[in-house]
């Protein structure tokens, strides 16, 4: 006899998946917000800093980019509390990890965005008598944002998928919800079919939404 797909048990536990999906989105949104802040501050600092600061920022970026995310999650969850004597739950720990992770990718995105602001615009800002700080806020950042918006969207979609890694430390997001249902129903194939569809549909919905935003802010040249 073959295996008969049966989704009834899945629907009975669907709240676990739905709640998990919402938490995944929440994790991704909070992490991209904090990560963007980290990335922006470090990028602005990087382009105006000396060699030492640049080296430190580069080291952070290299470290994060070359260590698998799942290891970073373990390091921050198990390692950091022992090292510096703080206590936090898995969700907080994961948000911290994913924010640092996003930050490292976004430093690069923002740095190249800042450097892509045409020289002439900065000259125009100087010629008006804007101070460096005003040139950053009124000239560089708006243009940088428009340039980097597509990369920012892509990072957000990746982060949304990466939230599934949080399941390894029992953060009740979508993938963890799927595993929970597996353990109680053994409907493994059905659970993963439904979960996959949920990731896909949500991912495409986000992508579609962000592309609309990008269109509105497209750089005029």
């Amino acid at each position, binding site marked *: 006899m073959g295996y008969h797909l049966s989704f009834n048990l899945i629907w009975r536990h669907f709240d676990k998946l739905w709640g998990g999906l919402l938490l995944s989105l929440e994790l991704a949104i909070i992490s991209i917000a904090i990560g963007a802040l980290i990335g922006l501050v470090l990028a602005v600092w990087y382009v105006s800093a000396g060699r030492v600061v640049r080296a430190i920022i580069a080291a952070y970026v290299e470290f994060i980019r070359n260590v698998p995310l799942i290891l970073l999650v373990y390091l921050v969850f198990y390692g950091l509390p022992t090292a510096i004597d703080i206590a936090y739950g898995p969700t907080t720990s994961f948000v911290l990890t994913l924010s640092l992770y996003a930050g490292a990718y976004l430093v690069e995105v923002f740095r190249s965005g800042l450097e892509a602001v045409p020289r002439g615009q900065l000259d125009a800002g100087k*010629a008006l008598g804007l101070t460096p700080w005003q040139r950053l806020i009124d000239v560089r950042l*708006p243009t940088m944002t428009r340039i980097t918006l597509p990369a920012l969207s892509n990072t957000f979609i990746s982060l949304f998928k990466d939230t599934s890694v949080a399941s390894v430390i029992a953060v009740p997001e979508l993938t963890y919800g799927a595993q929970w249902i597996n353990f109680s129903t053994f409907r493994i194939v059905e659970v993963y079919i439904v979960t996959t569809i949920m990731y896909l549909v949500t991912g495409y919905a986000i992508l579609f939404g962000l592309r609309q935003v990008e269109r509105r802010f497209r750089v005029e040249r």
Partner: protein
Amino acid sequence: MASEHLLDIRQLAKSFGKHQVLKAVDLHVSKGEVVTVIGPSGSGKTTLLRCVNFLETYDGGSIRIDGTEVGYRNDGPQRRRRGEVDLARMRAETGMVFQSFNLFPHLTAAENVMLGLRRVRKKPKREAREIALHWLGRVGLGHKADSLPGELSGGQQQRVGIARAVAMEPKILLLDEITSALDPELVGEVLDVVRQLAGDGMTMLMVTHEIAFARDASHRIVFMADGMVSAVVPPDQLQAAAAENDRLRSFLSRFSATAH
């Protein structure tokens, strides 16, 4: 140091690495005067203008506006670069119009003009907008106030660029080949605006390849060659000066052969 000239440039020297672009340039502009700099490409005209509002540093000599040295502070025998806030305040006294317009692409025409008024002149938003609309009207773009630069023609963008600079009420306006990036049919509308400003008594130092325009709009024409001022003449004596200055003659002849 007292000087009757609004802009007083003395023995200005500037190098990019080993390449000396300006060698002992002397030039002055009085209040209400329009001075045009002409000269072959690469002779240092842009660099000269950019030194005047310290978009470029300079190595030797001095540039004074209303008696105040641009970019540097003299600390006894030492010369020190001014702080950024001090530089910004000085730059606000000179307006600049660029060859490539350099409008802020995310701001409308009015917002481009308003930015300096708001941030530098600290005008309230309503007043800044009124001033912006006034100047956009003056350059014939009252109806384009809420358009983005990307929606404007080159000639219109450049007129916004002019409005943005003059709305700040600078002591002197610097114009660097402001029609060179324009299609020929759009040059006239921009030059008309400059002519009006000259009529209003705006002090201007401009670089242009529009020799005919330079001749009828300026009080003096400065010919630059190889980083030096090679001749300074009233516009009606340009031809006469060319008879005695080989480089000026060859520049003008090359010019009338191509651009007329």
